[in-house]
């Protein structure tokens, strides 16, 4: 094929996007590491070189371990539920039934509504004299301090994240279910297999790559939760619902401890990049034609 473009054309086409990515992605990326070696606690205008001091402080801080632990609790609770429950719903919707579009719209609704509105709606459900505590007390239990009891706050916030994610992953699963050959289900029906065996033997093995994909992307987004916590608990009570991103935000923008916050951000970067690498190399290769 003849070459129809000038020598510089490809670079000119890439230039605008390249500039934006350079200024708002690559420079900040390296600056995060750079900042983590400076001490801003005395003055944010005159930082002093601190070596690895921020990291030492970080790894000696009990709050850091608390925050890390909370983030992993988030992962271990939210990710399995978000990998399995939406699949179950997708399988149900995929049966030949009426009203599929309506169900899909209603279940997808939480995905498009602003997380701030969702968090406010749940805050109202979780109110001390709110409707959830009415349910709990009418079942004969003690009232629960959904957002005020350190034993509950983190889980109350996780519920919001799960509630907001179900519809999103359901749609991903529905797309995957379309690729399962219908003949296999027909064979199951002839053999008289029940609902459970049918899906355990045919559906699940067939869409295993999608299950793995949903697991990693929900893990990555669980690492990044912020708004739910900001609106509902501000990380409290007693740091019980504080996760990595909220902690970075608090240290950087409220305490102006830029070095320490950056060291924390480096920890987040390392974890998320590890997850993402697995995701891209194992599950999304085709998407990028690698």
């Amino acid at each position, binding site marked *: 094929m003849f070459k129809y473009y000038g020598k510089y054309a490809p670079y000119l*086409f*890439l230039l605008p996007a390249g500039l934006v990515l350079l200024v708002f992605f690559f420079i900040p990326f390296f600056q995060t590491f750079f*900042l983590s070696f400076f001490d801003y606690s005395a003055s944010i205008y005159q930082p002093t070189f601190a070596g690895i001091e921020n990291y030492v402080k970080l790894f000696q801080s009990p709050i850091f371990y608390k925050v890390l632990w909370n983030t992993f609790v988030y992962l271990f609770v939210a990710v399995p539920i978000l990998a399995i429950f939406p699949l179950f*719903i997708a399988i149900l919707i995929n049966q030949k039934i009426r009203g599929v579009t309506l169900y899909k719209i209603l279940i997808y609704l939480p995905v498009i509504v602003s997380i701030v*509105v969702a968090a406010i*709606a749940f805050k109202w459900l979780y109110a001390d004299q709110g409707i959830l505590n009415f349910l709990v007390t009418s079942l004969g239990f003690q009232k629960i301090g959904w957002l005020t009891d350190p034993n509950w706050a983190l889980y109350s916030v996780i519920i919001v994240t799960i509630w907001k994610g179900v519809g999103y992953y359901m*749609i991903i699963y529905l797309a995957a279910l379309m690729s399962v050959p219908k003949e296999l289900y027909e064979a199951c029906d002839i053999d008289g297999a029940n609902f459970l065996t049918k899906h355990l033997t045919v559906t699940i093995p067939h869409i295993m790559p999608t299950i793995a994909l949903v697991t990693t992307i929900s893990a990555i987004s669980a690492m990044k939760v*912020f708004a739910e916590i900001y609106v509902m608990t501000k990380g409290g009570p007693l740091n019980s619902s504080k996760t990595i991103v909220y902690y970075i935000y608090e240290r950087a923008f409220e305490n102006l401890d830029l070095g320490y916050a*950056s060291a924390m951000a480096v920890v987040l970067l390392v974890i998320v990049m590890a997850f993402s690498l697995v995701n891209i190399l194992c599950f999304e290769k085709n998407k990028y034609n690698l």
Partner: protein
Amino acid sequence: MKKFIEKFSIHAVLILVSLLSIFPFIWLISTSLKGAGENIFAYPPTIIPKDFTWANYTGVWHKVDFIGYFVNSMIVAGGTVFLNLILSAMAGYPLARMEFKGKKIAFFSILATIMIPFQAIMLPVYLITLKLHLVDSVNNFAGFIGMIMPFAVSAFGIFLMRQAFLGIPREMEEAAIVDGCSIWQLFTKVLMPMVKPSLAVLAIFTFIGSWGEFLWPSIVLTKESMYTLPVGVNNLQGMFSSNWRFIAAGSILATIPILIFFLAMQRYFISGENEGAVKG
């Protein structure tokens, strides 16, 4: 008979899940319609308001500049969509069709940005935005630019457009060049119209993402007149501390635009053709 029981139980489960999905909103709507004469903490709770009123809506409407928040959100989301379409298409095209030195490097650098969460680099992004004077304390225009620029292009968009250009037959380009098109004319007049479906998908998902963005505007914004809807809604909590009727009414008001958008565009979201398009 067995079929009937099966269908019945499937519907039962789906109705339950649908109800759980919308119940938080229903309860918010219910609260927003209850007048001062009704105890919103009443046990047992009532869904249908006894003392029905629109007063909370008019009340919150007069105290909060929803139109202003809405316009700000439109400017930010509109600007973000506009830049994403142009920058992603421009960057996607050479990656799909041209051979040049450094193509591999460009490709993998863009791919690498997928792995970098904004939350981890937001602090330096903020410092750079300050340095470039792209904040609302300079002037409103700078404030809007500052809210838009960090999200002006994404690897997702670039790869989506690259994929779209890969699907166009090469003969189209050859014919256009033979007809005397320059490369820029070829791109804007011939190719861009051919990738409209992908541009639409990119526009819709960028719009939703930008419309709901909360973290970045809450970091950069200093003036209330610049608030976008999510920031404004969060602010309701402070304004009306424990007046849940007003907070509920305000939250519902702020949700109406995106709800209309979703219902109008629902096939893009729930058809499954664009799986995984929203950023997590």
